[in-house]
């Protein structure tokens, strides 16, 4: 049990996927201008990452490991994640239209989110069990959402500040992201 709590804390804070591993920076800068979109993206990532983590673990252990084809991991994971997102989109549209319209444009965007791919590969490299994979995927996604929401809150305020012209928008965003990342370094001392 303690292991799992440690896993959750380390995935959310210590090894935060956005601020410590620098994966998924594209949506981090792209959809963090408004709080609503940030929350929407965070939810969509939680949803997809848990599913992708589970499926890729199954594909890896049942297919790739059995036939000794580990070198095809990246290729097959891209294939699986992309089609999974497609499938989830279709499924939600038919079965849970409310959730579908709530997630909106963020669902297809995740196809190209490297954080998803990254977490799936980390899960395999760390040789987690299936249950551990589920927990880490969920925690990484929560960490992603947390960082995104924090960052969106900061950016909403930054709009009001007087920023020198060359530094406006993405530039100041990156500077801020760096500082936020430094703040997260403090968690390194926890574990």
């Amino acid at each position, binding site marked *: 049990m303690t292991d799992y709590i440690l896993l959750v804390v380390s995935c959310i804070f210590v090894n935060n996927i956005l601020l410590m591993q620098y994966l998924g920076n594209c949506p981090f800068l792209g959809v963090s201008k408004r709080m609503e979109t940030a929350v929407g993206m965070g939810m969509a990532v939680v949803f997809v990452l848990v599913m992708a983590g589970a499926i890729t673990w199954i*594909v890896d252990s049942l*297919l*790739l490991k059995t*036939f*000794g*084809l580990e*070198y*095809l991991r990246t*290729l*097959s994971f891209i*294939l*699986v994640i992309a*089609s999974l997102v*497609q*499938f989830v989109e*279709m*499924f939600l*549209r*038919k*079965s849970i239209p409310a959730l579908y319209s709530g997630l909106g444009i963020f669902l297809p965007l995740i196809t190209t989110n490297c954080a998803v791919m990254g977490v799936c590969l980390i899960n395999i490299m760390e040789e987690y069990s299936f249950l551990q994979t589920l927990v880490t995927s969920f925690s990484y996604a929560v960490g992603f959402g947390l960082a995104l929401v924090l960052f969106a809150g900061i950016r909403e305020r930054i709009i*009001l*500040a*007087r920023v020198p012209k060359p530094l406006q928008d993405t530039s100041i965003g990156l500077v801020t992201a760096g500082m936020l990342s430094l703040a997260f370094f403090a968690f390194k001392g926890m574990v």
Partner: protein
Amino acid sequence: MLGGFLVIGGLGVVIGVGLALASKIFYVYVDPKIEAVEDALPGANCGGCGYPGCSANAVAIVGGKSSPASCVAGGPDVAAQIAEVLGVEITLKEPDISRPGCYYGVQDADVKYLYQGINDCRAAALLDGGAKICPIGCLGLGTCVRACPFDALSMGPDNLPVVDTERCTGCGTCERLCPKHIITLTSTSERMIGEYVTDECTAPCQRDCPTGINIPAFIQEIRNNNYESALAIIKEKCPLPLICGYICPAPCELACRRNLVDEAIAINPLKRFVSDYEMQTGKHLTPFKAPGSGQKIAIVGGGAEGLTLSYYLARLSYHPTIFEAKPQLGGILRYVIAEDRLPRKVLDHEIEGILETGVEARTNMRMGHDFDLQSLFEEGFDVIALTKGGFDSRQILKPDPSGYDASVPSVFTMLDFIYSLSKGKNIRESRRVVIIHSGLEGLELARKCRDMGAQKVTIVSSLKAHELPIELQDAKRLTAEGIIVRPSTIVTSLRGISRRLVRVAIEETDPIGELPEETMTIRADTLILAAGRLPEFVFVRSEEAEGLEPGEIAWETIESFRTFPGGNDGICTPPEPGRISDSSAVVKSLLSGRRLTRAIHRYLTDGTIPPIQHLVCEADAVLDVREVHDVSPSERERPDILDVTGDSKRAWIFPSEYPGLNEASAKKEAERCLRCGLICYRKQK
């Protein structure tokens, strides 16, 4: 190597087949029209239509929730293209123009602190909602001006945004940005049918005016010598300003903030002054008419309420026709009010102005005698409104041969019904009777109906079960008698076919369990109202019909006014004689006329009549001031009586036409106006 090919290839095949299957299984039908409409839209996703993007608006247009002409950026060309896709005719939309709703800049208003931070209203609003004490005041930092993509906004001399109406496209950027929601999109039509809500800046006089004239605005126009625009502002809310100028009891003057210093502004004489000015020119102010669809609407009753309804419907480009039982229009204004108080040439002048806007009038036409619902629907009217106003319904209804009134099929006022029973007239084929009543008289009548052969009698009462008389609480015994009592219930609508009533729609106001998903309807062929008059019914054609025979037309009534969702308004509000407008003063019937206009317009354009939320109903509900500072007393201007006849006594005793203010006094009086907002007013410095 081969294994790798096989695994990836196999994975690809499995996933491909899986996705292909999934797209079949989880197929969602998308109307091809939606795609066609989306192609026609400019794709700028500006949000001017009120939807988050072009594709959302396309869905709304095809679903009938948004107008084909709703695209602000596309203009008439795009509207025409969309209309072609949908195969409908376009109804052009009146442009919405942004309009700031604050009248005192930060330097003139009462403030809590001095703000010296970032020059942006959104930043200023983060500090306790801004520096102003007034919670809805303009912060004056010009965020909207900088944001306007069309350079239509500028900062005026008093630190308030000014709109260049020529340049404003109604995109709504300013409305979305303003943290205080002061600058909003509005149009003349919206103002004509709108009512004041608690989160907009209103003056005390304006809130207390039953018809809601923007009094400070029109007095401001008098100060600026723009008498015609002053009149235009009045006519947005009141189509009979000269008549009101003569006989309105002017509750606005009681509310006037100047009462705290000396004496109220002569609001009503000022209104009369601009209306007199119009009458002297011999012409009628040409009112703004919104582009519209031109449906035909029949209005039964040509009194103040019917005239108001027809005037605003004409200004919204419908084709209203008034049916009046008497030889001339005017109702109580013509046939009851003394000529000394209201000269008939004034009345004729005002009615002429209303008819000029495109209102047809047919006089000497009595409902139930010369025409009825069926014949009006057959003639092609889409909506029929009953505005009998202050006259008792029995005055204008022609009794049918069986002995009781028949203007609204099988709907009777209780007095008439009992009276015909007492004269020995039998209930004609009344099998299912609904009585709206909470008292013993209702029960007595219900028993009488049972004795005379009614199968089922339902008593509908808006009171809760325990508030009813004890005799009405014994449900078991009454059910055995064939009488059903429904407490906490209101009747919201009638449904009928041609000349007969079929069902009444009811709603529970205080449900014990869950709310019914849809309004319940109960079968009824006779409805008896406890009120002395029939309510202001609005009839429309209905699509659902059971037992429709060839040549017959199904109809239903629409609920004209609700203040909040789930409100217990119904056609009879509690206490029972209810959903009938108060006609104790002409100005009150003007309000109900405007409310009927709103209901009919919303019904014909959107299909639903949304309740008005946060309606200003009492002055207490909004922020106000109790004391006035920095205002020096000045005397109220009075009409110069000696000017008329040279003899002051004669002028008052025989006022064949009592005088109004002359121009000089009107100007002086207008200067006295404090031009109040919620808590701001003009101070002397």
